[in-house]
């Protein structure tokens, strides 16, 4: 009987090596950004230049991250499974859902806030397999109107009307 890849993990945990690499890359980029901060005289900075604290935190993150690929050994000794939350591949739905929401947010300046809310209330239930139109239609009309009324008329939040100029 062959072992699963998880059981074969040795000293380094493959997925966590990737996780650590991503964190190192983020830290590297952010560290570079700190070197581009405007320079100020020590007198003004009182010997604590603006990049000092962020760099200190980046060093701390890097030091902690060094332990991530080996952490599974500690969990194994405790009888925990570090992979319990990620043992299954991410299904297609979170990607599609995120994509749809991003598309709707891109559309806010054109559609306006009210139409975007309407879009969320129609498209997301349909995407998730809801086919009861008796449920979707009243929800998609009444809920955005209620939210828009509350925020726009009572809390006086300005709502983007979009190119169609649709607002309450």
């Amino acid at each position: 009987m062959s072992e699963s890849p998880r059981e074969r993990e040795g000293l380094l945990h493959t997925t966590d090596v990737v996780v650590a690499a991503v964190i190192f890359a983020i830290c590297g980029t952010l560290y570079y950004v700190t070197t581009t901060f405007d320079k100020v005289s020590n007198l003004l900075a009182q010997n604590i230049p603006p990049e000092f604290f962020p760099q200190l935190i980046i060093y701390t993150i890097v030091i902690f991250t060094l332990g991530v690929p080996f952490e599974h050994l500690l969990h194994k000794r405790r009888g925990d499974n570090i992979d319990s939350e990620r043992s299954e591949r991410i299904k297609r739905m979170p990607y599609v859902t995120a994509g749809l929401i991003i598309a709707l947010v891109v559309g806010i300046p054109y559609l306006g806030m009210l139409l975007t809310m309407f879009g969320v209330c129609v498209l997301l239930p349909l995407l998730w397999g809801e086919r009861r139109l008796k449920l979707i239609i009243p929800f998609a009309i009444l809920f955005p109107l209620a939210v828009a009324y509350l925020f726009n008329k009572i809390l006086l939040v300005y709502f983007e009307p979009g190119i169609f100029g649709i607002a309450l």
Partner: protein
Amino acid sequence: MEPVIEGLSLILLNPFNIMLIFGSVLIGVTVGALPGLSSPMAIALLLPFTITLDPVPAIGMMAALYCGGTFGGSITAILINAPGAPPAVATALDGYPMAKRGEAGRALGIATFSSVTGGIFSLIVFIVAAPALADVALKFRPPEYFALAVFALSMLASISGKSSLRNLIAGAFGVLLGTVGIHLTTGVERFTFGYPELTEGIAFVPVLIGLFAMGELLNQSQTLTEHYDRIRAHVTKLPGRDDLRLIWKTVLRSSGLGTFIGILPAEGSTVAAIMGYNEAKRWSKNKEQFGTGCPEGIAGPEAANNAATGGAMVPTLALGIPGSASTALILVALVMHGFRPGPFLVQQTPEFIYAIFGAMLLANIMFLGIGLAGAKLFSQVTLIPRTILWPAVVVFSMIGAYASASDILDVWIMLIAGIVGFIMKRHGFGLAPLVMGLILGSLVEESFSQSMIMYDNNFLGLFESPIVVGFFVLTFFSLFGPFMGPIVKRAFSRPDPGTEGS
């Protein structure tokens, strides 16, 4: 006595405020009862609504929602074995088996009674301890605040979640995120990437909504077809004399324990509930009945997790250090309303503290009624189709993020935070530590810079203060305690004579 009367009357003699608190408790219990929706998420979504309110009802609403949300999880934990909120995880262990054998009403009654007792116990401690702690904190200078904040961040290691290391990394990223914007001492822009909107720093509300609501939405989109088997609860009964005799010691012990855990920076209701369950089992004469529907197994975690709510308010208000993810959000709300949480808040506006106390007390009394009369109804909230519920959360998230500054950039920040939160959670990085880091970040940097200026850039100068040394010792134990335990145990355990030399 005058601030007490003034503070309590702000809540108890104002019908509008009472109505708002009742509404918040209802929302809290509903959200708590719905698996996937959590108190921090609800508080984050409530934040934009409260901007236009006066501070007392605004903060009172959030505190009431926090109490209601913590309790609400127990309803679905007992009736459908799906804890609506993480603090109710331990309640399901004995609550569901009791409900399954036809005693759902009894289980709900024990949970309600224990929750209310734990909540009120912690509020009494809160109202006594917050001013006392504020008195001590008045003596704190920047070095002491720096050491305290470092200690609070180190406590992130033990916050709920699997990995201490990943919690610390998340917390450190939160602190880093807190440095976005203009550096106070020099006026230099940091990590603004040319966006003028970022010069004042990352707006908390979009990040919080994104992490707690949008991240969870992406997670939930994978499990839309899950359904739960529901057990019917006909009548919820308060515990009778026999049950009271059995649970009163557990309730008191767990109330004390939960309050203490709540007071510890960064520890929250979930940790309190798990410890409450473990301690109830350790002290019980009926250990073997745990897991089969034992009343003490419901009373222990329920008293502890609700006691943690009042406890968590102590460091939040008296020190400005949040005691849990939910109180971190309340802290943000306080700042949004122009308060600076800490000893001066307690000293200069004590009536405000008593008003929050009044709101939480009222919330506890309200959910006693809700728990007894409406548990059956609240268990029905799980019937709301998730294909309708979650789009509503998306709408609230988008509008909530947008409303604080009427800026689309905030909606983007919310979305990015949601996607990052989803990925972080999947790989074991806690969201609460990130939020705590974000909130404590400015305090850490400010107090560190001031301390360095005080000691002429000599880091060792910090150790002149015994309080600083005390906090650093605590930090050391909080970081390395879990690793030291087994080593100390091994060093002090006697070798077994039978195996010696083998």
